[in-house]
């Protein structure tokens, strides 16, 4: 069964796999997480604002993103972003957007919906007394949010946010459908070029597994540390 297992192909392609593939994956994960949390927090604030003009579009956006497969969204943005770029810049034809930028926009906007649900729960979990006390001191909405509510909400939600980041990390593999070279894409290319699907896909699975496992163990330890401090 494993008589023909060719470790060599794995070793030979390590530089390509990690320097090209994994670098893309990690950068996409990091940037999309940062952007997603920022946009997600804004969406959460919109939904909690109480003004229908803000609540409804935000809720519609979040529900739309959560109703549709990620793969479909990847296709949507892949085709849509060049047209939007054309409209924004005023060019005569859809502009060429690089694979990385297209993926980054897609992932940031898609994951923002999930991050917004997390932040919404976090903000709502802050006792109303805190808001009342801040308002009683004369603070305005943005001061209350910026200094009292959001700092506490973030701290409470760090484990959940990190878990969502790990999910995002795994989701990056889906850029495969637009033939982008992330870690899985790189492994796939080597597999097809050298005819070594078994080795490459097993290796990819092991790498994803180890990274995700270590990351979620770290989050669990963080959660225990936080619980003690409380």
């Amino acid at each position: 069964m494993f008589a023909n297992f060719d470790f060599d192909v794995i070793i030979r392609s390590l530089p390509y796999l990690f320097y090209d593939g994994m670098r893309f994956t990690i950068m996409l994960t990091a940037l999309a997480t940062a952007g997603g949390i920022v946009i997600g927090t804004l969406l959460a604030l919109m939904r909690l604002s109480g003004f229908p003009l803000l609540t409804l579009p935000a809720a519609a956006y979040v529900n739309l993103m959560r109703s549709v497969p990620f793969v479909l969204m990847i296709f949507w943005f892949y085709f849509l972003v060049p047209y939007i770029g054309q409209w924004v810049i005023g060019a005569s034809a859809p502009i060429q957007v690089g694979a990385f930028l297209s993926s980054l926009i897609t992932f940031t906007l898609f994951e923002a919906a999930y991050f917004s649900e997390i932040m919404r729960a976090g903000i709502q979990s802050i006792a109303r007394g805190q808001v009342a006390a801040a308002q009683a001191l004369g603070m305005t909405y943005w001061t209350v949010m910026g200094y009292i509510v959001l700092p506490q909400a973030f701290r409470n939600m760090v484990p959940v946010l990190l878990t969502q980041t790990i999910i995002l990390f795994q989701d990056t593999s889906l850029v495969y459908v637009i033939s982008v070279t992330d870690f899985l894409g790189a492994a796939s290319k080597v597999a097809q070029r050298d005819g070594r699907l078994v080795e490459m896909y097993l290796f990819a699975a092991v790498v994803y597994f180890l990274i995700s496992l270590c990351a979620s163990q770290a989050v669990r330890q963080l959660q225990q540390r936080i619980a003690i401090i409380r």
Partner: protein
Amino acid sequence: MISLKEVSKWYGTMQVLNNCSTEVARGEVLVVCGPSGSGKSTLIKCVNGLEPIQKGSITVDGVSVDDPKTNLPKLRARIGMVFQHFELFPHLSVTRNLVLAQMKVLGRGKEEAMDKGLKLLDRVGLRSHADKYPGELSGGQQQRVAIARALAMDPIAMLFDEPTSALDPEMIKEVLDVMIALAKDGMTMMVVTHEMGFARQVARRVVFMDKGEIVEDAPTADFFGKPRSERAQQFLSKILQH
């Protein structure tokens, strides 16, 4: 200083305040008491606009609280409030709790704010705890810091919403002592409380509420000596036995 006229409030279809009228003169201490659910906490939260009212009017130092055109944050900066559950900001140190609003709302410089904050900490007897976090303090200590935080804004009046109800019995005295000193210094105070000893000592008048209405509003001696309404009599007889 504080004036409530025919204030009525509903949560949806449920009426929680019914035609409440009372006044607090400058330098006066008013105690509001009554059974749970009588609306006393709701009433005091209306005074600085934390809760809106549907009927009637409330004015503080001539400024209307219920007028939509009033700049509420600006008004609230001039009124201090102390809450039942202290509500210190847990992610900030004691010092930072004291200076945050001074800097962000009143625009004071850091030095000035720190100076004021530390002086007030001294006044409530907690100077040595300046760099601690709320989680490291006892309930009584937290409440005293909360009072200092409100005083740091140089308020013209102070509102207290059951300030000692969440404290263990041995810590109630330290907080009441601070409040008594404040009253003797001439602060205008409106206090929702069950502590009748405090009322007897510094309150000029006592208001008794039941089921959203002000049932009795009398000078302290009259209230404790010969309460006119039956409900007030029942209430007093129950709580004064302890």
